Structure formats: C-alpha cells, structure tokens
C-alpha cells in the first residue's frame, strides 16, 4: 500500500517538476529575448514581470478567468479523447479532424433546423457532433482491428480528408451566403442551438465538460466496458483469450475517442463561435496529445493539464503586450514540458529521483502512455 502511495506521489511529482523546469528554461529564453539593460537584476525583474503578466492575463480579472475556462473546455474534451484512445492501446493523432467534422455536422444541424425548441434542438446539435466524430474516429479503429492498418497513419490521413471535406462543404453547400461573408464558414446557428450562458460570457458547456469527465472516469475504471478496454489496450491477445471481442472494443475505443473530439467541436459551435469556420480546428490535434501525456492518461491529469495549457495560451497575450515577447514562447514552453514528460529520465536525472520501478511492471515501463493504473482519477 505504501508502495502504491509512493508511486502515485512520484506520478504527480514528475509532471509538476517538468512544468517548473520548462518555465525556468522559458524564463531564460525570455531573459535572452528581452532588452539589454545593464545590471543583473533587470533581467530577473523582466522575467518575473513577464510571468506575472502571464498569470494576470490568465486569471487577473473576471473576463480573463472566463477566457481561460472557455479555452479549457475543448482541451478537456480532446485530451480525454486522446486518453481514451491511449487506454485502448491506440494513438489518436486525429482529434483535429474529428473535431472538424463534429463542428461541421453540429453547425449543419444548428442552422438548417429552425423549428425545434431548445431542449430538443441543442441536444440534437451536440449529439450530431458526437456522432460525426465517432464515425471519423471509428473508421480508424475498425481498420486497425480488422486489417491492422496503423491508426497513427490512418488518423493523420483522415485529418486531411476531413480538412478537404470541410473546405469543400464550407465553400459549397454549407457556406454562409450572406453578401457580407467573405470566408469559408457556415451561417450562424439558430438561437435554439446555442448553449445558454451560465454567467454572462461563460456558456454552460463547462457543466457538460465536468459531467463528461466524471462519466469517462466512471466508464473506464468502474465498468466492465472500461475493464475490457484497458485489457485490450495493454494486451489484446489476453483480451481475446478472456473472451473480449477485440475488434468491437477497438472500434468502440476509437469511436468514443472520436466522439469526445467531435463533442469538442460541437461545444465550440454551440457555445462560442455559433458557426463552423474553416481551419478553426488547427492545433487541437497535437495540443490534445500533449495534454493526455502530461496528464499521464488519467482524467484528473487531463483536466489539470487542460487548465494549464488554457491558462498559458490565454495569458500569453498580456505577456506579449507588456514585454513584447512573442506569444509563441508558450509553444516553446509546452514543447519543453512535453519533452520532459516523454523522457522522464531527464527530470529524474535533474532532480535525482530514482528510476521507475520497471521490474515490477515491464509492460507499463515499455509503453508509458498506455500504462494502466488503478489511480486513474
């Protein structure tokens, strides 16, 4: 038992140290990019000033905090999407495409259907997004389970197919025909297809995201479905020996993964943009992978990582405004965090933490992101 406690402590310690270390290196970069003024204290003051601006930009005011939370919502959905894939033994690089088709489908239902009450229309919009994403992800799962086609490649390819499909539809049948519109986007969805505000400026998708996160945790760790999914993820041969229908479970895992990404798109449409615009999905694919890895493929980890990533992105604007440092510094910091999470030997070496207990857990050690644990809260 104490061993389990220790393992969980280290499990949380390493991501925290990775973040701290990345911020320190980021600080050096900020210092190097800052103005050259004599005196050693100026550089330190400059870095502190920059990070203070970052925090203020993310949480310094009510509007800033709402902004951070709004950014967090799609991160949690897509992070959970990638996590579910990982737990099922599959690497979903296609969250970006699944999000795009989800947004497209939900926007379509959102603006074409106009005569339904909100209690029917809004769930319909969200479910359509889920369904579209589930199909997009499920294809990759089915191909993997049936033919062995590697999901990394098929999801990348499906991203492009989704992108082209979106370009085709948003320039064609789904395009906003109003004379003022010059870009590839749908018309705005009906009022009945919009998530009502929880407080002004903050849509109720936040409630939804919490509910979905709890549901994902419950299904993965408390139900037979989750048990089967994790079994398939760790050892598909043992799963089929235990009588699990591996083809169905893999397809299901990628379908649910795609569904969560599609829901991210639908919630952006119904809660933030009220329409689907070409290219708004770009970047979510890799960010979601980073979030799932940083969160060690646990639900609480994904939520915390999403808050971190959202805060960094939101605060970056103020950081740039006050220090003239490009907002791209955030991408550099994120990349550094991910590097040190992926190769946790680096962190273990810097902070003299003992090596992972590999002999007790050979499979988990060889496929870190797929590692199972009962501490998946």
């Amino acid at each position: 038992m104490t061993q389990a406690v220790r393992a969980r402590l280290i499990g949380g310690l390493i991501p925290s140290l990775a973040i701290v270390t990345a911020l320190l290196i980021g600080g050096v970069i900020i210092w190097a990019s800052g103005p050259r003024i004599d005196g050693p204290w100026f550089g330190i003051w400059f870095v502190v000033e920059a990070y203070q601006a970052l925090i203020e930009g993310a949480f310094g005011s009510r509007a800033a905090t709402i902004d951070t939370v709004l950014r967090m919502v799609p991160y949690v959905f897509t992070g959970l999407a990638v996590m579910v894939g990982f737990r099922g033994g599959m690497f979903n690089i296609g969250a970006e495409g699944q999000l795009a088709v989800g947004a497209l489908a939900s926007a379509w239902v959102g603006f074409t259907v106009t005569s339904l009450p909100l209690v029917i229309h809004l769930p319909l919009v969200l479910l359509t997004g889920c369904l579209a994403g589930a199909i997009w992800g499920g294809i990759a799962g089915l191909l993997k389970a049936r033919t062995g086609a590697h999901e990394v490649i098929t999801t990348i390819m499906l991203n492009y197919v989704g992108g082209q499909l979106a370009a085709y539809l948003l320039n064609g049948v789904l395009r906003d025909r109003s004379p003022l519109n010059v870009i590839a986007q749908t018309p705005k969805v009906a009022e009945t297809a919009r998530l009502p505000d929880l407080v002004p400026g903050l849509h109720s998708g936040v409630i939804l995201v919490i509910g979905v996160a709890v549901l994902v945790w419950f299904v993965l760790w408390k139900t037979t479905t989750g048990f089967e999914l994790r079994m398939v993820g760790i050892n598909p041969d043992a799963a089929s020996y235990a009588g699990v229908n591996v083809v169905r479970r893999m397809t299901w895992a990628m379908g649910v993964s795609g569904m969560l990404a599609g829901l991210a798109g639908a919630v952006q449409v119904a809660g933030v943009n009220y329409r689907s615009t070409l290219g708004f999905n770009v970047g979510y694919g890799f960010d979601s992978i980073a979030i799932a890895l940083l969160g060690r493929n646990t639900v609480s980890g994904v939520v915390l990582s999403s808050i971190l990533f959202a805060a960094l992105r939101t605060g970056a604007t103020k950081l740039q405004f006050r220090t003239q440092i490009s907002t791209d510094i955030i991408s550099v910091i994120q990349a550094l965090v991910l590097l040190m999470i992926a190769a946790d030997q680096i962190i273990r070496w810097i902070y003299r933490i003992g090596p992972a207990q590999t002999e007790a857990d050979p499979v988990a050690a060889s496929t870190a992101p797929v590692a199972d644990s009962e501490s998946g809260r």
Partner: protein
Amino acid sequence: MTVGGGSVLGIPPSSEGYVLEARGLTKRYGSVIANKEVQFGVRRGEIVALLGENGAGKTTLMNMLFGMTAPDAGSVLIDGGPVRLQSPRDALALGIGMVHQHFMLVPPFTVAENIALGVEPSRRGILDLSDLEAQITALGRRFGIDIDPRALVKDLSVGQQQRVEIIKALYRGARVLILDEPTAVLTPQEADDLFKVLRGLAHEGTGIVFISHKLREVLDVAHRIVVMRRGAVAGEVLPRDATPESLASLMVGRDVLLRVEKAPSVPGNPVIVVRELVVNDDRRVRAVDGVSLSVRTGEIVGVAGVQGNGQTELVEAITGLRATQSGSLHLGERDLTRATVRERTDAGLAHIPEDRQRHGLVLPFTVAQNMILNRYYRLPFSRWMVMQAKAMRDQARDLVGRFDVRPANPEARVGSLSGGNKQKVIIARELSRDVRALVASQPTRGVDVGSVVFIHGALIAARDAGAAVLLVSAELDELLAVSDRILVMFRGRIVGEVEAATATREEIGLLMAGGVGRVIVPATN
C-alpha cells in the same frame, strides 16, 4: 589446477587445454542471481553438454560467453588467456560461434545475406555475394549440410534454418560452437542428423557446447556433462558414469520421482469431440489438416508432436482464438464450432494457454484482476456492467491461499510474480469454477520443479473431478507421466494413438517423425 566445487561425482576437472573457459562468472538481474561463480570449459574436439532445468542459468552463461551479456564478476578465458567480450563481435573475432535457441536469422534475407551479415564481402563498396555463395555450398558439402545459399530464410524449415546457423558460425571461423537447446524444435530423427553433424565437427577439432534439459540426448551425444542448478554448477560427470536418474537428481537437487502418482482413469462420456477439423495458420497455410479426436470425462488425453506440427493451431481452434476452415467441435451435445471464446468459457471450457505472458495474463493488472479475466462480466463480479471491487478482492484472497500463490497479495501486479506463480494464478482462475473440459498447452514450460509437481497434481485432480482434459506438451516425459492416452500429431494430422501406460518413447518418437506406429486408430468417437 582444479576447478572449485565441480567434482561432486569424483572426477577431478582440469582446466588444461580449454579453448574457452568461464572462471567465476556471476550475473545478477535485480535481486535475482542468474549465475553464481560459474566454472566451465570446453576443449578442442570435445562435445560438452550443459544440462539444467529451465531457469537454471544456462542461457545466461552462454550469453556471457558470447559477449551478449556483460558479467558482474569473473572472467572469460580463451586458450588460457583472459579476454574481455564487450559484444558478440569480440566473441566472433575470437572464434566463438553460437546457435541461439531463437534463431538469429533475418527472415526476408537470403541464406547468403544472413551469413554475410557483419562480415559482408564487397567490391568497391558494393555488396558482392557470389564468392560467398560458392563457399557456403563448399562448407555444406564438407559437413554434409545441404543448403541453397540463395533461398530466403523465411521459406526454410526450422531444421534447415538451424543448419544455416551452424554454417554461419563455421564461416565465421568458429573454433567453439555453442548450441542453445538445439533439439527443442526438431524431431528425434532430425536431432539424430544434427548429432551426426556435431560429431563430424568435433572430429575436425571444433569444441562444442551443447545446452539441453533432455537427459537422454545428453547421455547420447556428449563427451562430458556439466550440470547447472539455480545459477551454479552442481556437478560434472562423464556419460559412462551417469544414468538418467542420477542426472535428474543432480539437476533438481533431490531425488525426483519421474512418475506421477495417480489412480487409473475411469473415463465416461465423450466431452470434447472434434471432427475433421481444418485450421489455417497465420500465413494462411493449412496447419491442422482434418483432425478428429475425443476426450471423455475423467481422462487426460495427451498430444505429442514436434513443435510446429499444428498443435498450437489445434488448441487455438478448440478454445476459439482461431477460426476453423471446416470440421466441427462439440462440447458434450453442444455444437461450439462457431462459438465465441466467451460462449465456450460459459459452456464450461477452461484453457491454460501455451504463452501465459501473451495470452493468459494482463501483466500490469493485479493478481485479483487477473483472477476474474474469465468471469468479470458476471455476478458477483459485475452488476449492471459496474465492477464489484469487493467480490473481486474476496475471491482473490480465497484463491491465493488455496492455490498457494506467492506472494499471497491479491493487490500485487501479476507481472512481478515468478513464472511458476504466474501459472498458478492462471490455474486458480481456470479450475476454480465448474469445468467440464480443460485444454492445457505446455502448462509447465519455464516453471520451477515445485510448481511442476503442483500443476501436474492440479491436472489430475481436475480429471478425477470429472473434467475431460486435453494436454498438449513438448515434453514426452510429462505426457507419459500425466496422460492416460497419447495422440501424436505430425504435419497437422493425428498419426497415431498409444496407451500412456504401455507406450515407449521410441514408439512415440517414430510417430512424431511421421513414421508408422504400432497402433493407428482413426477417430475415436
């Protein structure tokens, strides 16, 4: 100069004239000591057998002598002088060749390409294998090994691949040839051919180290026998001074009963009934070619055969892991030919799989979780699809005690258990419910002697409780000791059936090689 600790049976070993020698080699893996101060040597033209159980440390020792593993202490000597082997490259350069248990041949490469690997002949930087191909043919002719240098390795039989390995070592100029369990994959007749080749090599001056856990072939071929037990040398004997029984007791450290105590079987109605089963392997080649068999309640039917003659596919087809092309499978009256694994499990079929790490267990899961792999979806372990942690824990606590799993901690990860205890987890899970039929494939492979006894006892207990047991094993001794009847498989067919009580090894060996046996019984129904 004498080698310490090696003269249990009174033969003073001398290191004089050793081509290759190990002095005090020690290797640890974490808390496990794989090799402990091992002394060992081989002379020119000598065939030395290294005998030991699975896990006795033979392979570790050979890997150190071949530079694949670095020792923690001790030294390797060649021609009496110490050498440092940092990689197989060093060993090869010093004239040590090795034929591994798992062949080190690249399947999509040709024979010549495989032999060239590492010492590639080239002309102006471009690979040129024409001379090499001629040399391979010449070497083959000299030692009576017939091989086509341009054939792709993946198209060769296992026996042929082994010859490629030997030629490869000879081409590299091996003065010492180490063979790791070379007969595991061969028929007795193929093994005899191999021994002929080895004797020829020894005659020409090559020193040969022959690793095995089979007593008879060791007595048959070796000039000298070194026995290992639990990572250390337990003794050294000459074949003329040894009997299978004396070697066995040296190997396991106490007198062992090669016979298993059991009552005569009282067979009842047929339970597992297989008719004209046809199954393909992964390459879609027919592996099981019209097998019919039946196993009755209260009997253990053994399946003998050289690895790769369709036993694996037969087991996978019966247990539902592999699709059948034609034929049928019944469990009692019930037709299970097209049933899913789950339906078979629910119908009372239990399965101890051949590869327990791959099929039988989910290593990062706990012991408790692994013990419900075949029933997690049923009451009391799940209710409305929600897992019931308490029921799982309670069962695990009970089974861990009853089946003597160590450590007795249901929350331990199965991956951290020893081979024998892993197997006990599987057996506890499979036999702790109402079982009508049990299919056990290589149930004692790689487990310690204590666990072997336990597992054999469990199989017989299942039989006596009325289950029909189908036992597939590569160990003839195990089959003879545990089974009531033995079927022999060759090239996907059942080529004979013998009574375990009266059968001889020779008889079964002949059948395994495709010869005609004393009794050929068509399908018993």
